[in-house]
C-alpha cells in the first residue's frame, strides 16, 4: 500500500521559475553532436595506450619494418637484394596487407568505441546529462575515424614514399628488364632488338599467323625454344604446319614483335613506381575499407554491448567469409554473396592492382586473372552494397544505443 502522509504541506525551496536563457539555448535534445563531444571522445580513444600501440604497430610498424629491412639489405648487397620500393612492392603491401589489416584494425577501434562506455560504466553518466543518445552515438564516428584514417594515412604515406623513392631503375617484366612506359611502336622496336628475350620469356597466347615459337631461339643454359625443326604442329587456325628447319632473323624479330604486341596491355600495367593517380585512388580505397571496418565494428559492438565478439566476427568476415564467397559461386545464394561488403569492395578496387585474397602480389592485374575469378557484380550494385552496410550498421548501432537500458 502506498500512503502519502502530509508531505504536501512542506514544499520549501526556491519558487518555480521559467528556464533561464542559458538553458533555453541548450539544444541537448538535438541528435547532432557538438564539437566538444567529438574531441573528448577522440581523446578517450587516443588515450588507450594499448590500442594505439597495436594500431600503430599494424598500420605503420609492420610496413616500416618490412620496407626498412628491404632498404638495408639492398643497400648492403644490391646484387642479391632488389630495391626496397617500386610498383610490385606497392601492390604487394597495399593489397596483401594494408587493405586487409586496415579493416581489422579499424574494426577493433570501432568495437572499442561502441562498447567501452557501457562496459566501463560511463554510459549512464552520459545518459544522465540529458544529451540525445543519438548524438552520443554519432559523436563516436568522426572521433574514431579521425584516429583510424590518420593511422592508415601515415602508414600508406610511408609505403608510397618508399615505393616511389626507392624504386628500381629498370622495369622487370616477365623476368626481363624492359624500359618503362614505352609506347606500342617503341615496345615493338625494343622487342625486335631483343627478340630472343621476348620469345623466351614473354607470355605467348597464340593467334592469327602465330603458330608457335620459331625454332632454335637460344634462351640460355643451352636451351632453345620452339618445336624442333621438321616437327608437325597444329595450327591455331586449324590444320597442321610443318616447322621449318630454320627461321630467318627477320622472321624471329617479326615473331617477337607479335608477342610483344600481345602483351602490350599487360606491360602497360607494370610500372617502376606506382603512378600518382593510382596512389590517390588506392589511398581512397583502403580508407573506405577502413571506414567500413570502423562503422561495422561500432554498430556491432553497440548492438551486442561488448568488444571481443564483434572483433572475432569481423575477423572471420574479412579473412574467411569474404575470400570464400568472392570466389565460389553458390547459385541460389548469389545475391547474398553479392551483398558481402568485402566482395563489393574488391569490385571497386582501383585498376592495375592484383585483387585481394588472391595471394597478394602482382598477377591478378586490374581486369586480369584475379578479377575474372570474382563473382559477377556491377559497379552500381557494389556501391549500393557498400552504402547499405554503412547506413545499416550506423542505424542499428544508434537504435540499440537509444533503446538500451543504461
Amino acid at each position, binding site marked *: 500500500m502506498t500512503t502519502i502522509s502530509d508531505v504536501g504541506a512542506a514544499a520549501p*525551496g526556491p519558487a518555480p521559475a521559467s528556464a533561464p536563457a542559458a538553458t533555453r539555448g541548450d539544444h541537448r535534445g538535438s541528435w547532432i553532436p557538438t564539437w566538444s563531444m567529438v574531441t573528448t571522445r577522440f581523446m578517450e580513444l587516443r588515450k588507450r595506450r594499448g590500442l594505439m600501440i597495436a594500431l600503430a604497430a599494424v598500420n605503420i610498424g609492420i610496413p616500416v619494418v618490412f620496407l626498412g629491412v628491404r632498404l638495408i639489405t639492398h643497400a648492403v648487397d644490391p646484387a642479391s637484394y632488389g630495391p626496397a620500393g617500386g610498383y610490385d612492392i606497392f601492390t604487394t603491401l597495399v593489397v596483401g596487407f594494408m587493405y586487409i589489416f586496415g579493416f581489422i584494425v579499424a574494426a577493433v577501434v570501432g568495437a572499442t568505441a561502441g562498447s567501452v562506455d557501457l562496459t566501463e560504466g*560511463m554510459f*549512464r553518466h552520459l545518459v544522465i546529462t540529458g544529451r540525445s543518445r543519438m548524438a552520443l552515438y554519432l559523436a563516436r564516428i568522426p572521433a574514431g575515424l579521425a584516429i583510424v584514417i590518420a593511422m592508415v594515412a601515415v602508414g600508406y604515406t610511408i609505403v608510397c614514399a618508399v615505393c616511389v623513392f626507392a624504386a628500381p631503375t629498370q622495369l622487370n617484366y616477365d623476368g626481363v628488364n624492359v624500359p618503362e612506359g614505352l609506347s606500342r611502336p617503341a615496345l615493338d622496336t625494343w622487342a625486335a632488338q631483343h627478340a630472343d628475350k621476348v620469345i623466351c620469356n614473354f607470355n605467348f597466347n597464340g593467334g592469327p599467323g602465330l603458330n608457335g615459337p620459331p625454332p632454335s631461339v637460344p634462351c640460355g643454359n643451352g636451351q632453345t625454344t620452339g618445336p624442333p625443326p621438321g616437327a608437325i604442329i597444329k595450327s591455331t587456325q586449324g590444320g597442321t604446319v610443318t616447322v621449318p628447319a630454320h627461321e630467318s632473323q627477320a622472321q624471329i624479330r617479326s615473331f617477337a614483335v607479335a608477342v610483344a604486341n600481345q602483351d602490350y596491355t599487360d606491360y602497360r600495367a607494370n610500372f617502376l613506381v606506382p603512378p600518382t593517380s593510382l596512389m590517390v585512388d588506392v589511398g581512397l580505397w583502403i580508407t573506405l575499407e577502413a571506414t567500413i571496418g570502423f562503422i561495422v565494428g561500432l554498430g556491432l559492438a553497440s548492438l551486442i554491448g561488448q568488444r571481443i565478439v564483434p572483433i572475432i566476427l569481423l575477423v572471420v568476415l574479412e579473412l574467411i567469409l569474404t575470400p570464400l564467397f568472392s570466389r565460389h559461386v553458390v547459385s541460389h545464394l548469389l545475391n547474398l554473396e553479392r551483398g558481402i561488403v568485402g566482395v563489393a569492395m574488391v569490385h571497386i578496387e582501383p585498376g592495375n592492382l592484383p585483387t585481394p585474397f588472391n595471394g597478394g602480389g602482382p598477377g591478378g592485374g586490374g581486369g586480369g586473372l584475379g578479377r575474372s575469378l570474382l563473382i559477377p557484380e556491377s559497379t552500381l550494385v557494389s556501391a549500393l552494397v557498400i552504402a547499405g552496410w554503412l547506413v545499416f550498421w550506423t542505424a542499428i548501432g544508434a537504435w540499440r544505443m537509444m533503446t538500451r537500458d543504461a
Partner: protein
Amino acid sequence: MSTATLASASPALAGDGQWAVETHGLTKRFGENVAVNDVELLVPRGCAFGYLGPNGAGKTTLIRVLLGLTHADAGTMFLLGHQVPRHRDVALARVGAIVDEPRFHGHLTGRQNLQILAAAREPAAKSRIEPGLERVGILHRADDKVSKYSMGMRQRLGVAACLLGDPQLLILDEPMNGLDPGGMLDMRDMIQSLVAEGRTVVLSSHLLDEVERTCDAVAIVDRGTVIRQGPIAQLLAGSSFEVQVECAEPERAAHLLEGTPFGSAVKAAPDGLAISLPEGTERDAIAQINRLLVGGGISVYRLQHIQASLEQWFLSVTKRLGEEDGE
C-alpha cells in the same frame, strides 16, 4: 565558477513545478517481478530527501526510471516540473546523479572524465570542472588516472560529475558506500551545503543513521512500494517512544505501575525504569506516569522523553508490514 557563484546561480535555474520529483502510479516490472509498484512520490524542493529501504526494495530501480536509464511500464513522473521522458533533455539539464557505484574510464584522469561529461552538457559546464573538483576535495588528484582512485575518491568524483550541470536536483544512490568515517562526514557536510544553496538532494540509502543526520524528509520503500513518506520529525512524532525514569525505589515504582496501562511496557534500567510507549501515545502519558509515581510516594529525580530513532521507526514499520503480510 566558484561555489558562491554556483549557489547564487541556482535559484534562477529552477524549472517549473512545485516538486523536485513527482511520480504518480509509477510502475516498473522485470518479468513477473514488480520492482517499482505504483509509486506516488513527492519530493519537496530545497531539502535533503532520503529514499530508504532494505536491499532489493527497488530504490535503485526507481532512480533509474526517473533518470531515463530504463523505461517505466506505467505511471507519470516529473523532474523539476518537467515531464519525463517527454522532456528529459530539459529536465536532466539541471539534474546530477550517481547511480550505483560510480564508474569512469579508468585509463583517463579524473579531470579528463569530467571533460567528457561536461562536453555532453552545456558549454558552461566546462568551467565548472575545477570548482567541482575542488569542492569534493580531489583537485590534487585530478590528474591521476581513475584506475588509481580508491572507492571513496570515485564517489567524490561522481559528486563532482553531478555538479557539472549546476544541478537543482541531485540524486545520489548510496553515496556513503565505500567512504571511511571522515569521508562520510565530508559527504554529509557537502549534502547539507548543497541544500543550503537551495538545491534538492535525494539520496537513497540503507544507512538509516546517516539519513537521519542528513535528511529533512524521507520515503520508505519496501518491495517496490512507498509505504511512508514525509518530514522526519513529523513521521517520528507519531511513533513509539521511551520514557526514562530516574527515581528512588525502582522495584516499588515498577510494582506501582503494573496495575496501570503502562505496566506491560516497564523495564528495569540502571538508575530507575525505562517505559516503552507505543506509536500514537500522547505526550500527556509522561505527566500521567509522573503523577502515578509521586502519588505512590516515589521520589522522581528525572523523566526523559527518548524519541525513537529513524532506524527503530523504520524497523518497526517494516516489521509490522511483514507481520501483516504473514497473516
